[in-house]
């Protein structure tokens, strides 16, 4: 269980760092000949190159060992398509859920002063650092059939979330939403609140000001946060398998399928991993374009 979990964390880690590095380069004017380039000390150069290799070699290995000849066949199998479709649908649904409740939460944290705001922000950030498996267990305790909320959901509405596709969405949203909230809150803090004051003097209620002024102004930040959340949801493993289980066509998303395939059919696992790698690269490219146009 730890191997794929680490893999997904590393993937989001590079995703988050990638755009930021892009930004710095764009802001720095893109000069190539920096003063630091006149002589790189070995004690820095050697570990740096080892670090670079450490990040790149595994990805290269994936490409080297890929069963290119049988790839078309592997990728067109019904299981792969099921898992891929389920992953895309659930990650998109989780992102939608995160947007609907995460953007207002970010606004609350950025714009309304209330006692204990620092504590609330810390709690929102907690799932970012919480091991996803722990998140899955926590979700079971809350929303499981005997959970503190799940009991009521079951007896009042007949809704059971664990081990369903909806459960996958819940697990992914739980893990991914903090990315969106943190990203949007940062954008809100950077946005000039005086535009909202200007809207107020023109007769706009706080909600109208948010909808017609603030939201359009922070749209690039919201989009970037949504992409981050979507990528995180797509790679989610620990919370999903704990809370929603591993049932083909219902809760078996791509990362789960990869893990399972690795034990029975390693070639299929590599093929599935390549698909996820391709999606990640596409996301990174999309984010870069987003940031380039936002500048």
């Amino acid at each position: 269980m730890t191997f794929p979990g680490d893999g997904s964390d590393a993937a989001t880690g590079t995703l988050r760092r990638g755009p930021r590095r892009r930004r710095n380069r764009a802001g720095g004017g893109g000069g190539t000949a920096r003063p630091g380039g006149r002589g790189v000390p070995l004690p820095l150069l050697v570990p740096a190159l080892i670090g670079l290799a450490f990040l790149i070699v595994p990805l290269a290995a994936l490409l080297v060992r890929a069963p290119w000849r049988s790839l078309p066949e592997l990728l067109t199998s019904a299981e792969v398509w099921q898992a891929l479709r389920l992953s895309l649908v659930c990650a998109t649904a989780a992102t939608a859920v995160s947007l609907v409740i995460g953007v207002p939460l970010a606004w609350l944290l950025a714009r309304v002063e209330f006692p204990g705001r620092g504590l609330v922000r810390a709690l929102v950030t907690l799932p970012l650092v919480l091991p996803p498996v722990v998140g899955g267990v926590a979700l079971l305790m809350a929303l499981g059939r005997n959970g503190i909320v799940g009991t009521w959901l079951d007896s009042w509405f007949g809704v059971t979330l664990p081990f369903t596709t909806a459960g996958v969405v819940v697990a992914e949203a739980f893990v991914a939403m903090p990315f969106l909230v943190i990203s949007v809150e940062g954008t809100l803090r950077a946005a000039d609140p005086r535009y909202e004051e200007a809207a107020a003097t023109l007769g706009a209620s706080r909600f109208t000001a948010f909808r017609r002024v603030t939201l359009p102004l922070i749209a690039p930040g919201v989009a970037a946060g949504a992409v981050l959340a979507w990528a995180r949801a797509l790679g989610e493993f620990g919370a999903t398998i704990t809370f929603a289980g591993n049932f083909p066509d219902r809760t078996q998303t791509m990362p789960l399928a990869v893990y399972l395939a690795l034990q029975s059919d390693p070639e299929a696992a590599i093929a599935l991993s390549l698909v996820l790698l391709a999606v990640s690269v596409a996301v990174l490219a999309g984010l870069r374009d987003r940031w380039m146009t936002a500048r």
Partner: protein
Amino acid sequence: MTAGAHDADARTPENGSAEGLDARLVVERGSFRLDVALSVAPGEVVALLGPNGAGKTTALRALAGLTPLTGGRLRLDGTALERTPPESRPVGVVFQDYLLFPHLTALDNVAFGPRCQGATRAEGRARAAEWLGRLGLAEHAGAKPRRLSGGQAQRVALARALATRPRLLLLDEPLAALDARTRLEVRAQLRRHLAEFEAVAVLVTHDPLDAMVLADRLVVVEDGRVVQEGTPSDIARHPRTDYIAQLVGLNLYRGEARGHTVRLGAGAGITTAEDLSGPVFVAFPPSAVTLHRDRPTGASARNLWRCEVAGLETHGDQIRADLGGELPLVADLTAVAAAELDLHPGATVWAAVKATQTHAYPV
């Protein structure tokens, strides 16, 4: 100085029962306390003038409802507004950097207010187009704010504020964001638009020229309090604080008059043309001062002080000398004169002012 002392105020009802603005704005924030009384009649333009940090912008924000009052009162056309949130006040604001919504066109920026007041999209746009036309911006209706020049953006901001049909128009440093050439042109336009505006207009500025050109009446605020108010010409002639004297370019002293002599505390005296007694202000312009390297012998100048040059700066095509000594004062002279006198910081000179060039008035 009470509000009733000026012609402009004669139009303001004393009881605050009817038209116009009647306010006493008290805002306490840490050690800073703003306490400013303000009565403005409909059609009148009042400028809050003061140095940075005096509390002018705080007063403006309090009028708009963006900063809560901690005391005092705020009545507009007889209605109490202290507890009314900004979106419900009949107040329009032109912000210093305009704060035009960057994602909306000029037309939609101006239509924003009417839309918030319940107009349909078509009605809002029609009203916005009318305002843009009135301010000579019809051909820029479709432009986003970043494509407007400073002067155009300023007029769009004015149109946006006016389109809500405010009973109180607030302008925060309306010309500060413009370059010098645009400023001249926009100042004249703004003056015309303000003259047409039938409700109360209050503008905040630290620029005395803007204040004097745009406003019917000035309220000078220093350190959170009103230190003087009156018509621009009245304030220019009779400054009551160093700040105002500097603004209008006068040397100002306060002392005790006995006949034609005014004693200024530590012994220095000024001979004046006026015959007064009791506490007075004495003012004279820097151009009335003549400087001499040696003590002049003729008796034409009645006032003579030994001074030391503290600083020199160019001021238009003149040199302005900042002098210390018995009597701190500023003097204007030509560059040629400055060279002939060999003026430099630390040099000793004699400053002379004719009594007829001074102006004394009671405190």
